[in-house]
């Protein structure tokens, strides 16, 4: 199998990856994700970072469908799927069950992490109540949202994660519409407002950064949340071989910055070169943005600049908080 030419997009990957990652696969080959699926890659990386002492609760969605067609399974860690809106609630029950049984000596006295996962629809829309409840209650669990910016499993319908200007099957670009008219909901910020021990954004375009964040979240007691950006060639109408490149571009343009918030303090974990690359470099590679005229691209550029500045301000301000 030949590696795509953009494999080297990840600096020093050849050097570090074998040393820093588990060789064991917990989300195994043979699942039926699309070619170039960023989410399947991200899930695989997450599992490697979590290791075997993990129970995964999966919301209904692509990963559940492609990874578990009865009687097969791609999951080597214990895994449960119940429904679309309740992965966080089920995962909170898993945590409570394991905690009670461990305390009573009914299961091995070992730290097993409960991890809830879901797509942007399952997490940010239909499941936001269950997520908010589980996070607020302080369960010792991690929730990872794999955000590919629309309901991809049901056929590319818009979600509250869909970016402004993207054409989806329920927010289509048309004669009098530029497609999705709203700006992406900032769920990581909503999670920060829950006073979690740890909140981070991540991307499969930066695998080591993502895995380090998963490891950190796993090691901390209490609820933590990671919002992982995942490229969907099928839904974004992008070439499957540029999945990694698109993920890198999302960060390099400032559209999806990578940062972490530990006990309320913001820190950039990947500092893109400045000035940031123009958003057009990212948008033009995707069919979902193809219809956008230059004036709309400028609207997006202005918004990205503002949001990025706001984030840098938070990082800057956070520094002074530690002195308080």
């Amino acid at each position, binding site marked *: 199998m030949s590696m795509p030419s953009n494999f080297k997009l990840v600096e020093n990957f050849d050097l570090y990856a074998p040393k820093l990652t588990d060789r064991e696969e917990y989300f195994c080959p043979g699942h039926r994700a699309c070619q170039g699926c960023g989410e399947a890659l991200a899930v695989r990386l997450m599992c490697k970072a979590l290791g*075997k*002492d*993990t*129970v995964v*609760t999966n919301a209904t969605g692509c990963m*559940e*469908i492609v990874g*578990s*067609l*009865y*009687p097969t*399974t791609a*999951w*080597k*860690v*214990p*895994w*449960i*799927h*119940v*429904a679309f*809106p*309740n992965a966080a*609630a*089920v*995962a*909170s*029950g*898993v*945590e*409570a*069950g*394991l*905690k*009670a*049984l461990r*305390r*009573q000596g*009914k*299961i*091995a006295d070992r730290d*097993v992490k*409960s991890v809830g996962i879901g797509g942007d629809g399952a997490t940010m829309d239909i499941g936001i*109540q*269950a997520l*908010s*409840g*589980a996070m*607020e*209650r302080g369960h010792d669990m991690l929730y990872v949202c794999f955000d590919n910016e629309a309901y991809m499993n049901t056929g590319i319908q818009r979600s509250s994660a869909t970016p402004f200007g993207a054409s989806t099957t329920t927010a289509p670009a048309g004669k009098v519409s530029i497609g999705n008219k709203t700006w992406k909901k900032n769920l990581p910020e909503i999670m920060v407002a829950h006073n979690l021990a740890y909140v981070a954004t991540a991307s499969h375009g930066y695998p080591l950064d993502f895995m380090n964040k998963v490891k950190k979240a796993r090691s901390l007691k209490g609820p933590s949340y990671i919002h992982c950006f995942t490229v969907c060639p099928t839904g974004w109408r992008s070439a499957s071989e540029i999945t990694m490149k698109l993920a890198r571009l999302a960060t390099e343009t400032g559209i999806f910055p990578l940062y972490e918030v530990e006990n309320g303090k913001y820190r950039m974990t990947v500092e893109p070169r400045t000035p940031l690359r123009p958003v057009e470099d990212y948008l033009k590679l995707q069919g979902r943005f193809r219809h956008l005229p230059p004036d709309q691209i400028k609207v997006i550029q202005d918004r990205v600049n503002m949001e990025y500045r706001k984030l840098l301000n938070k990082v800057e301000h956070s520094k002074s908080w530690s002195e308080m």
Partner: protein
Amino acid sequence: MSKRIGIEVAVAAAEAAALCRFDVAAVYPITPQSHVAEHLSNIVADGRIDAEFITVESEHSAMSAAMGASATGARVVTATSSQGLMYMHEVLPIASAMRLPIVMAIANRAVSGPLNILNDHSDIMPQRDSGWISLFAENGQEVVDMMIQAFKIAEHRDVQLPVNVNIDGFQLTHMVEPLEMPDQKEVDKFLPPYKPYATLHPDKPVSMGTFAMNDVYTEVMKAKDAALVNSKEVILAVWKEWEKRFGRAYEPIEGYRVKGAEILMLTMGSMGETAAVAIDELRKKGIPAGLLKMKLWRPFPFDELKKAVKGAKTLIVTDRAVSFGGPGGPVAGEVRSALYDQPTRPAIINEIIGLGGRDMMVEHFMEIVMKAAKAGRKKRKEAYEFYGVREA
């Protein structure tokens, strides 16, 4: 030794769950179930048993968290009512399909709209086909007994199904009743620790709740139906054992003064006690009336029903819910269907009673029976009647 005490029934339901040493309770408060939720949290807060209480943010999450906890091998209890049960609806058939032996107390209450907090059975009836074992308690003692029996039935290896115990809201949940609270040692002997078939643990990883298409879905449904049908044998055995250990007998359909009864009335839940008083009064008047109290709703007790109605000329089925635009009440619909193939069967009258907390007094039940006695086998024009409805 069991202790005879006076206790609010909702509190008694929580106490019964504590006697079963639940590991996890995930409950969202709703009137008239709230005292169950509160008392379960008290039991955990006082450290009376070593358990986790999850203060979920909704009933949907209550059942979801219950499923997650149950899947780890924990013994799990929850409770709800009315809108809460409707909100749970999505996940109920998943709990039974995944064979998670969760026990749920339901403080039965009318379903909105209009909003109404009082008792009827319109919350549980839409859950009829979710694949749960469904028990109906008549009084506080039955609530305590059934809550404990429910764990034993649910966790039996041949069953592995969730069980709901239906407790009429207010009429039963909020009554302070004299009852015998079983002793912890006796309950421990009756109910051994839960031995799950498979659990979510890395020592033996499994995938639960996998995606299944048309090649196996039918088989899964057949298996679930068979599990429900076959659970009756276990339920009967558990009730036999209960009678031996605790001296109180349970039957899927309990008869009251059925000997020589030409007119039978069938009730579910707490109204059985009022109806029984009515039967006594009717017998005094020389009317050959008897009462059937259905305790087991799912699996449906076909054989017991057929046997119970043998010889009766009229069967009055009371319903506390409406199947709108359908056969009247859901219970009558099922009873008619169950008796259709019988060579001889009683005339069936369906009375929809006690909706949204509408009081049913002894004289009301008497009126219903006397009207039926007068009509004899003459067929009614309507398949069902909203008893006592005021019409302009």
